[in-house]
């Protein structure tokens, strides 16, 4: 004879798989669409930043004949130099009406002052309220500063002074992030997506098997069957767990496939999300599914109707995000004690895997044990609830 738990689980899964709306919500919207949207946004952001890097900065120079070397220097900084003649009024008009972004005006006095070794002013026109123009103006300014420094160095050398004298402090900016660590910053939200999609996978079954069963009036009949009542609820929790595991497998695979579409390497990032990472993510999050299934089932057991259960579980879905958010704000580093906190431990484990720097196996085992112990305790509590008369509502 098949055990009650298995019979109940099989029936709940069969019913769930037949309900198209439930299925679309549990296994499609969450696990497939969520990462897809996420990655679409990521792709958009990345392509924008690449475009910005490759973009030439346009600059219009007025009276270029007055400063031929300077103009040459701008061209060498790969600025898109355009030469025009006009008055200051013309320049203002070009910017406001003709979409010129940055205009550099070389005054008539530039040549004589430059030759006399006096500070030679140039005027840089740009609309400061336009972030696009501001960005380009910054690049022109950088090019001008480089030219100015070059000329200064040559003048000092001509007078027998080492140019380093005027460089008391030099800044060397060193970016220590490894390519993967940088990607993790952007992909950090993926663990969020994974945990949420896992929860969503079992949400409808958890509600249907408890509040739904009561609302439809089939619970009372079920309770008159000569089986231990806790086995009925264990079967329901198990069915919810199976749905969550299916959702988890789908979301992990979906992320792996979607990330293929993004050329992360070209941005100096590498996302470690190959097939081996997919199953390791699955193994790390699987114990969390049992705990989540038990939590959802216990909460849904307290509610009377499908609607009430939905609104309560909506709140419960946010609970696992709390420790992750707090740890994020406090910039918490992975520690062994944190492995005891469900959801946060999974978050850190997934982050480690994405970073290509997995946490120790013993930590993963500790996280799994913590989830399983809590999950079993909650399942036992659900069993106790089902033994009470109040379960009839």
């Amino acid at each position, binding site marked *: 004879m*098949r055990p009650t738990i298995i*019979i109940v689980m099989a029936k709940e899964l069969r019913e769930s798989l037949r309900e198209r709306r439930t299925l679309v919500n549990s296994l499609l919207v969450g696990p497939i669409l969520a990462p897809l949207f996420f990655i679409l946004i990521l792709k958009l952001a990345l392509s924008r930043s690449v475009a910005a890097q490759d973009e030439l900065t346009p600059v219009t120079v007025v009276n270029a004949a007055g400063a031929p070397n300077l103009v040459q220097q701008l061209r060498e900084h790969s600025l898109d130099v355009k030469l025009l003649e006009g008055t200051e009024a013309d320049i203002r008009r070009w910017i406001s009406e003709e979409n010129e972004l940055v205009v550099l005006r070389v005054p008539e006095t530039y040549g004589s002052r430059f030759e006399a070794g006096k500070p030679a002013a140039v005027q840089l026109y740009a609309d400061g309220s336009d972030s696009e123009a501001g960005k380009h103006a910054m690049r022109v300014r950088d090019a001008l500063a480089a030219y100015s420094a070059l000329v200064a160095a040559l003048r000092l050398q001509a007078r027998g002074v080492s140019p380093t004298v005027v460089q008391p402090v030099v800044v060397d900016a060193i970016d220590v992030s490894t390519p993967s660590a940088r990607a993790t910053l952007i992909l950090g939200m993926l663990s969020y997506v994974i945990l949420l999609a896992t929860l969503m996978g079992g949400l409808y079954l958890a509600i249907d098997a408890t509040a739904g069963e009561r609302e439809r*009036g089939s619970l009372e*009949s079920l309770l*008159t*069957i000569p089986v231990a009542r806790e086995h009925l609820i264990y079967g329901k929790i198990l069915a919810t767990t199976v749905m969550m595991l299916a959702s988890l497998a789908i979301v992990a695979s979906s992320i792996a496939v979607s990330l293929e579409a993004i050329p992360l390497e070209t941005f100096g990032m590498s996302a470690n999300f190959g097939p081996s990472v997919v199953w390791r993510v699955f193994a790390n999050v699987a114990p969390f599914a049992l705990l989540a299934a038990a939590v959802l089932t216990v909460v849904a057991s307290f509610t009377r109707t499908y609607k009430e259960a939905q609104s309560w579980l909506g709140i419960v879905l946010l609970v696992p995000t709390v420790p992750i958010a707090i740890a994020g704000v406090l910039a918490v580093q992975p520690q062994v004690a944190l492995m005891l906190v469900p959801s946060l431990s999974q978050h850190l484990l997934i982050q480690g895997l994405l970073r290509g720097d997995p946490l120790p196996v013993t930590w993963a085992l500790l996280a799994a044990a913590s989830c399983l112990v809590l999950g079993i305790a909650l399942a036992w509590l659900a069993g106790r609830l089902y033994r009470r008369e109040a379960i009839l509502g």
Partner: protein
Amino acid sequence: MIRVEGLTRSFGAVRAVDGVGFEANDGRITGLLGPNGAGKSTTLRILYTVLRPEGGHASIDGVDVVADPLATRRKIGVLPHGAGIYPQLSARENIAYFGRLHGLEGATLARRVEELVAELEIGGYADRRAKGFSQGERIKVALARALVHGPRNLLLDEPTNGLDVMATRALRALILRLKSAGHCILFSSHVMQEVAALCDDIVIIHKGRVAAAGTPDALRDRFGSPTLEDAFVAAIGDARGLE
């Protein structure tokens, strides 16, 4: 055979069942008649072990319902008030699910489901999903589900509620067939006509107590009333809440 003696049960300050006692015998239909809130459902719920009594005794085929709920449940088929079935399963699957939970499997289960489909005339919609079933179709499937393990005792809580005339007639015919097969049938109703038409024994419940009990003839004689309706009114003081 069902025996009930001095059963009591309160919900908060309300004494829902206050010393109910009666007997329901095999091969007979016993009706619990009373207005809504009289304590019929609570009595039945104690008998089918989802509520525990505070006092008194109840046994089914000699098994104490409080001391051994699992053995009790094996001996009873239950149609609770407003019983629902699983909308995504077909009629056959609904019945088979309960069969499996009762420990039936394989050919035995299939045969039992076939028997019930034939006996309750479910054939026309046996393989359709229960989602769109009429109330009458649903009740039949719920009843087949309650009978799947071949229980001798049947507890039906307001089974004809919400049924149209044809469905009610079909259900009555079915209950009579089960009676002639030797089942002990206990059902509750607040509809006088139904109880009068079906029952061999009537237990009139009012405010958690048994106001009167006996065969329809005995009740008429006892209250000197020409009709059962007059006897009911005489027994409980007024007929409010009855139909």
